[in-house]
């Protein structure tokens, strides 16, 4: 298939983002029609837009961008279309870090403890993956390493839940784990955005190295790529972006897995060419998902993390069936 022209793709993604951002501000249990925007003082619904929906939309954009790019970068690095911060256990490790701060009640005293713990958890997770990939970076070792990280962190989370000092702590942890953009404020935006921007900036510098990795690690090194530098730029970048995302929204899986896949037929398989489109595409996926959960007619709002998992699992299955031939 011939890839579509870059400018057309970017234009399409940007238009989709603008439209979705608009809908994200207007749509929900309470619809805020256009005329409210024109005369803000007269209508109390203005507060809904500014204090609830605007931070929610901004977070959706930032977290989607972070997860989409993390997925594209991890797939490029591992040369494995099944890679994503969720599948490889990076998000789970970030969640474990965050849960530990919730468990000890540190967040009430030191508000930045949670993002720091989440980013640290993510960094430990990526570091373990990189160490394992240093010796044998086969598809199987990566998926197994991810499974181990996922098991390890879910055991840690379960331990924290079972030993929780009081039911409120349990409630807080469970509620947070499910992953959602609901009821977020500008405080979360100011925590996450700088870390996400920094992480994405680092990841974007790895494009040429990821391209060269198409020829494998030996091929990339023979082209003058320093694998050590690439590995650590990528590890820190993914940890910052994915860790900060988990810190403010909990675990939202499958965005990083799905986004590069949807874009690959449009931009071609070269990993470096997927990076910027995945930023935009991830934001589109998360915003669209968040609008859908808001509009789902249930008593309480469906958690975004839950909805993404419900949509993502079948996608993962199809991918696995298609890949079965190549990895068997």
């Amino acid at each position, binding site marked *: 298939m011939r890839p579509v022209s870059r400018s057309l793709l970017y234009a399409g993604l940007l238009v989709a983002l603008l439209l979705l951002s608009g809908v994200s501000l207007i749509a929900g249990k309470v619809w805020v029609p256009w005329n409210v925007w024109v005369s803000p003082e007269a209508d109390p619904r203005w507060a809904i837009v500014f204090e609830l929906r605007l931070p929610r939309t901004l977070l959706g954009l930032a977290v989607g961008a972070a997860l989409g790019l993390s997925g594209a970068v991890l797939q490029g690095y591992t040369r494995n279309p099944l890679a994503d911060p969720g599948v490889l256990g990076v998000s789970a490790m970030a969640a474990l870090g965050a849960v530990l701060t919730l468990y000890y009640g540190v967040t009430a005293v030191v508000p930045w403890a949670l993002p720091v713990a989440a980013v640290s958890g993510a960094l430990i997770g990526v570091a373990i993956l990189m160490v394992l990939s240093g010796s044998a970076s086969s598809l199987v070792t990566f998926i197994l390493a991810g499974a181990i990280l996922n098991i390890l962190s879910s055991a840690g989370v379960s331990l924290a839940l079972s030993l929780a000092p009081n039911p409120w702590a349990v409630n807080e942890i469970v509620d947070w784990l499910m992953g959602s953009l609901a009821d977020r404020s500008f405080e979360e935006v100011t925590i996450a955005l700088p870390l996400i921007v920094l992480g994405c900036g680092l990841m974007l510098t790895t494009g*040429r190295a990821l391209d*060269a990795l*198409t*020829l*494998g690690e030996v091929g990339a090194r*023979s082209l*003058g790529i320093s694998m050590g530098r690439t590995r650590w730029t990528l590890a820190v970048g993914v940890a910052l972006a994915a860790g900060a995302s988990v810190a403010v929204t909990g675990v939202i899986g499958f965005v990083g897995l799905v986004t590069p896949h949807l874009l690959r037929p449009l931009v071609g398989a070269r990993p470096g060419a997927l990076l910027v489109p995945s930023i935009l595409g991830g934001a589109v996926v998360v915003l669209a998902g968040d609008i859908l959960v808001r509009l789902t007619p249930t008593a309480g709002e469906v958690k975004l993390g839950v909805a993404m998992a419900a949509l993502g699992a079948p996608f993962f299955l199809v991918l696995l069936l298609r890949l079965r031939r190549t990895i068997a």
Partner: protein
Amino acid sequence: MSVLSCTDLGVRIGQRAILSAVSLSIEAGRVTAIVGPNGAGKSTLLSCLAGLREPSSGLAALDSVALSAIKPRDRARRLAFLPQTPEIAWSVEARTLIELGRTPLIGARGQTAEDRTVVDRAMAAANVSEFEHRIVDTLSGGERARVLIARALAGEPQWLLADEPLAGLDPAHQLDAAALFRRLADEGIGIVVTLHDLSMALRLSDRIIVLADGAVLADEPPATALSAEVLKRAYGIEAILTRGPGGPLIDVIRRT
């Protein structure tokens, strides 16, 4: 004239010595073939000479500068390496793959018109222009091997080190590849190849290095390198050097 050399080069993996005390000096502008039985250390030697493997002892140097002391990007500009079993991870177009050869030369601005011209020339030289836009997965093994040769040429290297570049090519394309290596050497590029086909080594190269058990057994011009005695010691075979209509031939008679 550029010189690629190694001095007292040794490589150990655990307790096993893969190479021991190998000293060589290879000049550019010639085709040098490294031959030897399976497990003799050919690939290991080649990757040391390519600066991709740190030897356990001794050193490999390019123009008397240790390869480990040259920045990876600078090394990659001068020296191209074709691994024996190249990995191609993604289903990209042949041209995209060949363009990767320009990686060490491309600046922050990305590809220039000159880069594209060089890539076109590399494709023409390796005879792969016709499948520029084919996805690499759809190419045959031989076509892919030629695409990878074009990838190496796209970097306009001073040296081309290739591990079994003729394996998987049919006889006609083997001859094409051999002629290409010859032409590149005549243009001043240093060609170092490992080969299994001894007759091809005789016809293609200016110099043959015979490795056995991690040491150099012979290092001579083709006319004398593959003597019956050397072949017996290296491969454990009884063979004679004859002459066919197409050039020298190694006729293997039996195992000794």
